């Protein structure tokens, strides 16, 4: 059965289809693509021979909008890119602009930023775990993950008033002082959380079915990962020990002790283990940070109207999904000349074709889930 | 009287389904009517107190072999078969053969049960399953084993042929 639709931009269609090859379209509306992603698969029976990701369904022109907003006005927009981990987006942007201004957030602000960002990392991984498990058929972990995520979102709401698109940070530091009981709540969450991760691990890690569905699926070796520019847990699961929190420390990460989990094979199971371990390490960082938040001002002296000197800066952070980078070019006015975002999901999605080739159709959903993409970031 | 009515019901069902099966143009409908024919035959077996045969007919014939038939029909390109002529130039030979067969059956019924070999008496005893099992594993052991080996050979052949394609 051949279904050849001529589509100028797609080179999957123009190759000659063999007797058994069909093209399967996982359309933009699909329960398991985690957003409006369109995947075209060329199948030979059950096996994926070629694949193509068609993106852009969520493109909102964020980078163009940046050219017409002042630096502070643009800050809420970055939350909407990776809307699952808004706090990290804000951190990257604020630090990039601070670099441009040659300013630095005061120590107290840096530590609070670290705590909130690590909590956001846990929340992002929890959402990833819940939805990934749901795609593979485990109906229960998603509810447990959201129960924990709820606790984190409550902390965010108490801190800055919003749960999802938080706009928690400002250029130069923080706007809001931490609320009474912030440290206690963070510590209590972290204490309860260790047991919860063990709960998820009990359900999944040793489970034959889970292992059977994820081991050996979507293998990405280290050389390919580096060549494709993949970062984040996907890179670390393939064997490359690279984490910007250790390699190029920012915020307050150089003050804390934590490990960078890596695995060897680079299959879905390894990525699962890496992210589970990362949640544990984030918890560790939060506990250390919450013990000892320095006192002092929360905002640096950057002035009300931001007019960075002309120049350019590239600053990247280790977001939950990978290296999130901001390349900002300033022409000396209050509005940036160009803001270019390096979204981790977009770059990681390039590895999808490599991972999906040769795998079975039923594994495609697992592979999309394991890369952990957010379409808001992929399309901007 | 009641049992007569039941027999006529099953017999009518079997004959009707058989006629419908060979006259349907839609091949899936034909397969479904073959299924009902087999079920009616199973009903007749039950009436003759051959309860083991009744369930085995359903499990194996209807639940196994006909499932295979239906699978194959559904996976094969049906448009070709829909356009095949139902009654083609072989119908004269087929008609003649049917007449000959009918004449033989009529003759056999007219002559009476004396001509047919007596059914093995032990199959008619109360516990039909036990009786069949006994007979199979004592008197008819060799044919049973030969049939098993035949089936095994067929299975292995099918698996080998399927694997080679992959």
């Amino acid at each position, binding site marked *: *059965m051949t279904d050849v639709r001529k589509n100028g931009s797609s080179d999957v269609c123009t190759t000659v289809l063999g007797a058994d090859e069909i093209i*399967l379209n*996982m359309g933009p509306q*699909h*329960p*398991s693509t985690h957003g409006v992603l369109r995947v075209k698969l060329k199948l030979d029976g*059950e*096996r994926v021979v070629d694949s193509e990701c068609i993106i852009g369904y969520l493109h909102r022109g964020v980078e163009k909008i940046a050219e017409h907003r002042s630096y502070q006005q643009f800050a809420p927009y970055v939350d909407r890119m990776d809307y699952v981990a808004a706090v990290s987006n804000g951190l990257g942007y604020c630090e990039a602009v601070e670099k441009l201004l040659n300013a630095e957030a005061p120590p107290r602000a840096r530590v609070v930023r670290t705590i909130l960002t690590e909590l956001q990392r846990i929340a992002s991984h929890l959402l990833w775990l819940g939805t990934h*498990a749901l795609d*593979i*058929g*485990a*109906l*229960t972990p998603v*509810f*447990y993950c959201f*129960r924990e995520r709820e606790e984190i979102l409550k902390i965010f709401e108490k801190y800055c008033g919003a749960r999802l698109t938080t706009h928690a940070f400002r250029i130069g530091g923080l706007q809001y002082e931490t609320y009474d009981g912030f440290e206690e709540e963070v510590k209590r969450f972290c204490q309860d959380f260790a047991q919860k991760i063990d709960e998820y691990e009990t*359900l999944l890690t040793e*489970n034959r*079915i889970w*292992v*059977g*569905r994820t*081991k*050996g*699926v979507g*293998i990405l070796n280290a050389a390919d990962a580096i060549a494709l520019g993949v970062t984040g847990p996907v890179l670390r699961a393939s064997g490359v020990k690279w984490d910007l929190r250790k390699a190029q420390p920012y915020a307050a990460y150089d003050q804390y002790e934590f490990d960078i989990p890596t695995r060897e094979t680079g*299959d879905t199971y390894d990525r699962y283990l890496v992210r589970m371990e990362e949640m544990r390490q984030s918890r560790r960082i939060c506990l250390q940070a919450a013990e000892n938040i320095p006192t002092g001002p929360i905002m640096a002296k950057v002035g009300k109207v931001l007019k960075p000197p002309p120049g350019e800066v590239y600053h990247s952070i280790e977001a939950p999904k990978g290296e999130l980078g901001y390349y900002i070019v300033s022409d000396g006015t209050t509005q940036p000349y160009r803001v270019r975002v390096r979204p981790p999901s977009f770059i990681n999605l390039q590895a999808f074709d490599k991972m999906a*080739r*040769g*795998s*079975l*159709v*039923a*594994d*495609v*959903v697992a592979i999309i889930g394991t890369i952990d993409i957010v379409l808001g970031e992929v399309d901007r | 009287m*009641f049992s007569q009515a039941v027999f006529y019901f099953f017999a009518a069902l079997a004959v009707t389904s058989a006629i419908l099966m060979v006259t349907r143009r*839609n091949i*899936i*409908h034909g397969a*479904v009517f073959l*299924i009902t024919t087999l079920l009616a035959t199973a009903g007749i077996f039950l009436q003759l107190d051959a*309860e*083991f045969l*009744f*369930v085995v007919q*359903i*499990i194996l014939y*209807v*639940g*196994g072999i006909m*499932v295979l038939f*239906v*699978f194959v029909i*559904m*996976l094969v390109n049906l448009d070709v078969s829909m356009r095949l002529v139902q009654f083609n130039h072989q119908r004269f030979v087929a008609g003649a053969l049917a007449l000959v067969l009918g004449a033989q059956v009529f003759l056999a019924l007219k002559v009476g049960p004396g001509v047919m070999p007596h059914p093995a008496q032990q199959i008619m005893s*109360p*516990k039909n*399953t036990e009786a069949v099992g006994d007979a199979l594993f004592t008197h008819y052991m060799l044919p049973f084993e030969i049939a098993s080996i035949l089936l095994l050979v067929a299975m292995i052949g099918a698996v080998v042929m399927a694997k080679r394609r992959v």
Partner: protein
Amino acid sequence: MMHLIPPAIVPYVLPVVYALVIVAVLPLMAGYIVLLERKVMADMQARLGPMRVGPHGLLQPIADAVKLLLKEDIVPREADRLMFYVAPLVSVTMALLAYAAMPFGPAFQIADLNVGLLFILAVSSLGIYGIVLGGWASNSHYSLLGALRSAAQLVSYETAAGLGLVSGLLLAGSLSMKDIVQAQADQGVWFILVAPIGFFVYLVGSIAETNRAPFDLPEAESELVAGYMTEYSGFRWSLYFLAEYANMIIVAGIATTLFLGGWLRPFPRIHEHLFGTSVELLDALPSLIFLAIGLYCFRLTPRQPVQIQKFVMAAAGGLCLLLAGAMAASLFAPPTVMQGVHGGFWFMVKVMAYLYAFLWIRFTFPRYRFDQLMRLGWRFLIPLALVNVIGVGTAIVLQQQWGWNPRVTELVTLAATIGVAIWLASEDEKPVAAVVAADGE
């Protein structure tokens, strides 16, 4: 009253009454099992489940049924009309037909066939046609492939489940469902304790046969391959659903009859009497159980947030106490009545426990991929079932022909079978995908 009925139809009256009862009660029961599933699912997922329609969501099945009945009946234009109409009917009919041989109690059975067990298996295997014809009638290539896959899964696991049953059958010595339970009463032990591997094989096979998780890929992978139910909406869909849940109850009934002692109470041969009365201690269990549940309901009543929920909880407690009283009263009734009532109670308890296991498994495990599923069926379950049959047969021969101690033979053969199972499971661990990736490069 019985003398008013002409003698020719007397033997048919009671079975017809039972059949009507079953056909009337079963859809309602299936609906409430759906509600039970949703509540149990919610409980395992740290939430409440349906609470809105009726107190504690108790009227939810009725609301769902009404909704489905009122939905527009859509028949796809290109579909094969005859098959489209017939397919759900086949599923439901076969599911309901299997109840004819199911013994709910010592006297509550529509037909005690000599080959009752095989009859139920035969009828279950006919249910496959409902799926296959439904997939065909949808006139969609993917729908058809999904249906054929589902049917292939059913056929494979039916073999395994049947072989699992054979081990129980060897112990019982008869295919008649009533005789099987009687054999357990005579031997004084539930067959699960004698042939646990057979029970395990049957458990896994029955989960796959009813298309439940973790074997529900043909149903749930509707993202890539549409399932056979896609084109069905409204009442036709509810027929398929009813067939699925009726099938679940059937397999639970078979497992109960064959392995869990049917309508027998636990320890059927221990006749400890209660304080010197004629009442046996273990026979008082049903009323004690209901009493405990009733008291627990009363304890929960003050904690309900809403007035009507309080009322319903108290009513449930009252109902349990009433049932406890009825169970206790039946102890002093003629033996047939007592056996009937208590038999029905124990049968339902065991069926519910088996169904709870189904639900529990569904919400704990992820789903198997189709090739892994077939691999598990053919390369693990069927060999294990065969070895188990050999084991149980050997145990029986050793006991009966050579006079060995029953417990010893059972333990030895059980250990051997478990050894084979472990070996088979370790064989299974090589992941298929690694091989796939290797020759993809």
